[in-house]
């Protein structure tokens, strides 16, 4: 009895338990069936073990499912229902509905008036029809019908073959408006020709239509009393351009379409630029493989992990990080830069943690040894001080609030620490930190080797110092970011924008306040706390956690003696 669902949950190939065991656990077997089952269980040890486990699991379910404190209904549930019942159901307000109806009626009336005023010839002109090339067969039928109706008034005459072919070409095979014999005979064929571009000749039509509009009117005004009256009416009620044009409307429509097309084009190009940018930032597939990161399951190059690797070169769980030895801070700026480059290369070759250390030592070896030893000693001294603080229980870790971004929706802005709404304490980390003394886990919050710099826009301010060894400090903002891949992907994109703005602001502030200004750039580090999944009530299997450390401290380069 196996079952595999969409999530890949497998009931297990090894189970031999059939549905009788459900009855057995639920006490629904009659004595005969029960005796038979017990006999089978006695004979088959494996079956017995599986059945016992099944029963234990049902016991676990029955003890755990109803027992959680969150299952207690809120005290105000019944009063709320009673309040609702006491409140009369809201009356349907007719105001908005009435307003909508009136507006619709006004629109319809306006359309009717316009139609009547402009007359059928206007709306059913050939130009109009020609512009609606995508219209369906019923439009064609309408056009044919009206062509027939018009025939007695406008004695149909075929334009020259070449002209017809041009027009047909222009309108995609559609025939142009037939010209009358009178029109040709009266020497105003030129005016008739002027109508032609209305159909949809492209750039030349604009001038032609405008310049010859009056001529076209004259032409039509000579078609008889009805036609004259009709034409006069047109002239009086609308502008020439409006009447003749089909072109004018056509231009407007085309403009609209063009605008839409340009918008779409702009969006497409923007999206392409974003895609290209994201693709350019992504490490190679081989790097992902070497780093042990599975390839994305969605669109190539667009998954969170791909994106996160832009920032994140630390592929390790928090527990793994905690086990690592504390390393000395890097030395001179040259060495730091060398290390920064080395980090890149490390990720590129994917040598893993051991490889990182090796590469680090190699980079350090290439640096200025004197400066290195001096700065290293300096850094180690700071570390010792910090460790002493931890030992005294004064470390920042104990008191550091770990905040959680509950990501559903956090795509628009990054909430600061001061904002309480929407940010809650992370129970796991709170427990973890409160369950053990800080002195026992001095490096718990330490993230060794955090990643490369943030992004191009902040690289200028985020000098590659202290990044080889990093622990959060009092004053830092530490966040757990929780969400699924799609949410985090959006979040990271937003975060980049946020940091760019912050960095720009910080740069301006620094310019105003000088290098010793109180505010400095926000330096962000991302530590992959875990991809634990299902570690918190309500977690979904695809949930991911990232730790963000935002430091609002000014970067102070190591001093050279």
């Amino acid at each position, binding site marked *: 009895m196996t079952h595999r669902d969409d999530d890949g949950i*497998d009931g297990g190939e090894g189970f031999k338990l059939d549905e009788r065991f459900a009855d057995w656990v639920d006490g629904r077997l009659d004595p005969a069936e029960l005796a038979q089952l017990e006999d089978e269980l006695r004979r088959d040890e494996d079956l017995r073990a599986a059945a016992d*486990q099944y029963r234990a699991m049902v016991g676990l379910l029955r003890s755990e499912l109803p027992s959680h404190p969150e299952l207690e209904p809120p005290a105000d549930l019944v009063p709320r229902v009673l309040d609702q019942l006491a409140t009369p159901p809201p009356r349907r307000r007719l105001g908005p509905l009435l307003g909508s109806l009136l507006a619709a009626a006004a629109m319809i009336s306006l359309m009717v008036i316009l139609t009547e005023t402009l007359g059928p010839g206007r709306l059913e002109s050939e130009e109009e029809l020609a512009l609606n090339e995508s219209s369906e067969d019923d439009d064609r039928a309408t056009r044919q019908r009206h062509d027939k109706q018009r025939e007695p008034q406008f004695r149909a005459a075929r334009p020259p073959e070449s002209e017809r072919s041009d027009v047909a070409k222009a309108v995609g095979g559609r025939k142009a408006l037939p010209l009358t014999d009178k029109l040709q005979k009266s020497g105003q064929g030129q005016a008739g020709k002027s109508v032609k571009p209305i159909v949809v000749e492209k750039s030349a039509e604009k001038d032609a239509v405008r310049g010859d509009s009056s001529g076209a009117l004259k032409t039509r005004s000579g078609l008889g009393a009805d036609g004259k009256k009709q034409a006069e009416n047109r002239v009086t009620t609308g502008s020439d351009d409006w009447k003749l044009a089909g072109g004018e409307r056509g231009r407007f429509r085309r403009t609209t379409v063009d605008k839409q097309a340009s918008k779409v084009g702009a969006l497409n190009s923007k999206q392409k630029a974003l895609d290209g940018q994201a693709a350019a930032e992504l490490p190679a597939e081989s790097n992902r493989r070497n780093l042990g990161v599975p390839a994305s399951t969605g669109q190539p190059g667009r998954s969170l992990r791909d994106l996160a690797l832009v920032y994140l070169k630390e592929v390790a769980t928090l527990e793994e990080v905690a086990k690592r030895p504390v390393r000395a801070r890097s030395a001179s700026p040259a060495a730091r830069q060398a290390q920064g480059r080395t980090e890149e290369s490390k990720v590129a070759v994917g040598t893993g943690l051991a490889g990182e250390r090796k590469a680090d030592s190699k980079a350090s070896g290439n640096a200025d040894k004197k400066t290195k030893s001096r700065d290293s000693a300096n850094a180690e001294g700071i570390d010792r001080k910090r460790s002493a603080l931890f030992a005294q229980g004064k470390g920042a870790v104990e008191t550091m609030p770990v905040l959680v971004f509950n990501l559903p929706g956090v795509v628009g802005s990054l909430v600061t620490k001061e904002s309480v709404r929407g940010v809650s304490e992370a129970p796991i980390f709170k427990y973890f930190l409160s369950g053990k003394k800080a002195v026992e886990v001095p490096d718990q919050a330490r993230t060794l080797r955090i990643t490369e710099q943030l992004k191009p826009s902040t690289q200028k301010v985020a000098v590659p110092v202290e990044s080889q060894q990093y622990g959060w400090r009092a004053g830092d903002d530490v966040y757990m970011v929780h969400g699924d891949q799609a949410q985090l992907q959006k979040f990271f994109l937003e975060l980049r924008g946020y940091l760019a703005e912050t960095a720009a602001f910080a740069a301006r502030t620094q310019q105003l306040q000088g290098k010793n200004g109180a505010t400095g750039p926000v330096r962000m580090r991302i530590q992959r706390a875990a991809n634990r999944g299902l570690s918190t009530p309500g977690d979904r299997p695809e949930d991911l956690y990232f730790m963000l450390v935002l430091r609002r401290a000014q970067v102070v380069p190591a001093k050279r003696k």
Partner: protein
Amino acid sequence: MHEKPDQQGTVQESQRLAPLEAGDSALPTVDQELYDQQAEALGRAQAGDEDAFRWLMETHQKRVFRLVIRMLGCDRHTAADISQEVFLRAFRAIDSFDGRSLFGTWLHKITMNLCISEFRRRKALKRDRPTYSLDAPVAGQDDASIDPVTHEAGPEDLAYHKDVASAVKAAVQRLPEEFRECVLLRDMQGMSYEEIASILDLQPGTVRSRIHRGRLILQKLLKEFTP
């Protein structure tokens, strides 16, 4: 025959659930007095007595709320809203309740229908990828879902307990919907197969099969927590 409810949300789970020791097929007996009390309250509620309906709500609120929160895996606010809607619908339709099933069963049916609606709504939301407010409660991160650290239990016990609770909850959420509803109605609500079949409009045999399959999946998912 249907089991009859008691005051704490029909029959206590420990009584209603068949004993896990195989061979004991006796279903729990029911206090006739409580059953009559509920029937009387129902009659009064149908006549428009608000107090009687309040009593019925207080009797059943725990089971309804619990079922909602386990079915949807949602936070307490959402569960409370849905539970509220369940009772509102029940009150509005109480005249149509013909007494052919237990009131609790009928209420469960309303609850399950609303849960299914909520499922669909969530699917639609997921499809549209809406932007939520930062203030929106988040499943599992809600206030009462966090067990306060007490001084009585050690960190390890607490951690283990929390692990088990989380694992059970997560495993149940991973169950396919049709299995989850059957398992929850049986192993959490303690309903009989026949009652479940009535609520879900299924054959009892189908209910039995789904319960068993659901349990098998859970057995695999919770393997590390069972001996």
